[in-house]
């Protein structure tokens, strides 16, 4: 069960509560509740009175319900009306139930409880009798709602087909049978949605998702307590999810990465043609992700794109793949550049005039997820991995965009509770360097050997962005370089605390008879850009030639894709010798200062 915790709860707090969900036992649930009650009042959320009217025993689930509501977050005060006293409880203004001032009211009922005769004797009834009974039920729902005049939101549960009638062929084949009546009554309940404070608690859907295993037949007969305790948390979470949009506003903006998030592949590396966004797996998954994002847009969520890319490349994708569900105009704003993602979120927030707490961030890379959540703790970061299915499922099941209707609705949320929280902690100046220091980056540079050849060829042929000369040497050329002692070939590998990125950088240089070094190729895979690893590779090159050489020469050959590296040689201290037709020649006298940033631990 995937649980979304309040954003201001820290990991330590969440871990204490998570065990209740993992172990699904009453003891753990009670421990979690006790822990939540010991938290500072401000992060426990608003006080909410929840009144439950029901036709069967739910009291045994009160701890589970309290936990599920507490993690919205709110401080739930849950109470029950008398058994089978639904009308009496909410139509009489002086009822004991209403005097407890519920903010939310749940009506949870079953057909077998409110009309057992219909459920057990329907086979003895004529069609006209069955129509009459069905209309009576629909009328009961109508009278209940028309008589209700309180301010509290009223959550009406839908009915489910009683287990007696599951798989009964003749009932499936008649009008005004049990199945048909359940669907007609549910239809009438649904028709009141969002009128007079009515919301739908779709227990029929809950039961169809969990299946009959969620029903404890024995406890139903023994104590009229039908919901299996194994499914108590699932049930209580379903109830709290339904009420959540009343307590917590939905998020307004979905910020999505592009490469490997809404299409498969990296446009700057793989090129337009090879992007995966079509009917073939995994392109089919990306297609679904885009459709999902588009439908979120239709419910009023603003979609923005934040991508480490050249804007022209991004525009080309939308032009070239004109059959993609998402069009350029579906994005409220686009940032395709080489800035850090959190800087782009800040700039979009200013542009749209929304707070950081309006953003949900979606990116396939753990690295970017971690950086955004550390730099901007108010931004919701969806935890996904690079598998597109995980992206799709996370986006599909998140409650962050839940809403009752696609118009602005009244909210009972207690306002500004978040402002009570000490935000100084969050506003602490956070820099990219802080983040990179936390990453525990480790670079290792080795001389190329035969085993690394395939990866070196791959890097040479595929790297476009961080590639100073874009020379596409083939296997034969590279083989010759390997046996030629005037060549220096260095391979960079990178890892961080999220995992091993493998071999991500390559440098090829030659030393001539005058002991002058010329750099033939210098490149870094796009997934390693932005960590300063190129300087570790640079330093390794200097180190390997500094004792024997006095000059180093290099050139930058501009292409459509490699503008990100245009200044690289200047940043390492080289001087421009000439500029001609997109080629900039550099040189530098030895010795050179080391450039590796202090957040990278270098192994050679």
């Amino acid at each position, binding site marked *: 069960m995937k649980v979304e915790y309040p954003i201001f709860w820290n990991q330590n707090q969440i871990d204490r509560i998570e065990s209740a969900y993992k172990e699904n*036992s009453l003891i753990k649930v009670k421990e979690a509740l006790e822990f939540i009650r010991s938290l500072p009042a401000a992060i426990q959320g608003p006080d909410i009175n929840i009144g439950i009217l029901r036709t069967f025993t739910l009291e045994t689930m009160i701890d589970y319900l309290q936990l599920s509501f507490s993690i919205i977050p709110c401080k739930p005060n849950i109470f029950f009306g008398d058994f089978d006293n639904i009308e009496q409880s909410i139509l009489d203004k002086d009822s004991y139930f209403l005097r407890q001032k519920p903010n939310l009211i749940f009506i949870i009922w079953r057909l077998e409880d409110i009309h057992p005769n219909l459920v057990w004797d329907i086979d003895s009834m004529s069609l006209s009798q069955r129509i009459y009974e069905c209309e009576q039920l629909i009328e009961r729902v109508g009278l209940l709602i028309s008589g209700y005049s309180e301010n509290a939101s009223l959550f009406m549960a839908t009915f489910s087909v009683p287990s007696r009638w599951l798989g009964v062929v003749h009932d499936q084949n008649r009008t005004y049978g049990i199945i048909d009546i359940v669907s007609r009554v549910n239809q009438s309940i649904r028709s009141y949605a969002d009128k007079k404070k009515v919301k739908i608690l779709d227990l029929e859907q809950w039961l169809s998702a969990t299946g009959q295993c969620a029903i404890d037949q*024995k406890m139903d007969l023994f104590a009229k307590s039908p919901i299996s305790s194994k499914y108590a948390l699932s049930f209580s979470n379903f109830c709290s999810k339904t009420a959540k949009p009343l307590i917590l506003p939905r998020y307004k903006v979905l910020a999505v990465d592009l490469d490997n998030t809404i299409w498969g592949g990296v446009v700057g590396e793989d090129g337009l043609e090879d992007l995966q966004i079509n009917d073939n797996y995994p392109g089919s998954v990306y297609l679904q992700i885009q459709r999902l994002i588009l439908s979120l847009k239709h419910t009023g969520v603003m979609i923005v794109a934040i991508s480490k890319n050249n804007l022209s490349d991004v525009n080309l994708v939308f032009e070239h793949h004109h059959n993609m569900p998402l069009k350029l105009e579906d994005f409220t704003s686009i940032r395709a550049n080489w800035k850090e993602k959190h800087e782009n979120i800040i700039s979009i927030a200013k542009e749209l005039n929304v707070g950081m707490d309006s953003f949900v961030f979606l990116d396939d890379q753990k690295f970017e997820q971690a950086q955004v959540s550390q730099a901007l703790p108010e931004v919701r970061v969806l935890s996904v991995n690079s598998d597109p299915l995980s992206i799709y499922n996370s986006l599909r099941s998140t409650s962050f965009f839940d809403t009752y209707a696609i118009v602005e609705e009244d909210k009972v949320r207690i306002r500004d509770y978040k402002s009570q929280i000490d935000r100084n902690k969050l506003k602490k100046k956070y820099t990219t360097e802080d983040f990179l220091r936390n990453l525990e980056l480790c670079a290792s540079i080795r001389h190329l050997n035969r085993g690394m050849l395939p990866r070196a060829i791959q890097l040479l042929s595929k790297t476009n962005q961080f590639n100073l000369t874009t020379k596409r040497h083939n296997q034969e050329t590279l083989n010759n370089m390997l046996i030629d002692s005037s060549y220096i070939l260095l391979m960079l590998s990178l890892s961080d605390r999220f995992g091993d990125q493998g071999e991500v950088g390559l440098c090829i240089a030659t030393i001539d008879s005058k002991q002058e070094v010329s750099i033939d190729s210098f490149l870094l895979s796009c997934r390693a850009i932005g960590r300063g690893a190129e300087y570790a590779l640079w330093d390794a090159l200097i180190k390997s030639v500094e004792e024997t050489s006095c000059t180093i020469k290099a050139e930058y050959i501009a292409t459509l894709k490699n503008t990100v590296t245009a200044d690289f040689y200047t940043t390492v201290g080289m001087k421009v010798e000439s500029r001609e037709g997109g080629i900039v020649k550099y040189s530098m006298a030895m010795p050179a200062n080391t450039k590796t940033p202090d957040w990278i631990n270098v192994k050679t």
Partner: protein
Amino acid sequence: MSNLNILINLSSSIFEIPVSDIDIESSQDNIKGWDSLATIKLITELEKEFSIQFDIMEIVELTSIGKVVDILKNKGIDFNDS
């Protein structure tokens, strides 16, 4: 944790009394919190904890910790080390 300890911890949580107030003699008669709702919780949590099912005849017998132990023993739950 021994199975007796598991049972006592669970009972303490359900009846909302300290672990030290529960022993093999504890029953519906001398524990205030042991009402019908507590019985339902006890049944369902024990079934979850020990991956067992009580039948209806056993359920009505679950009126004291001693009887709970007897019935759990009959179901193959080990209480020898306690």
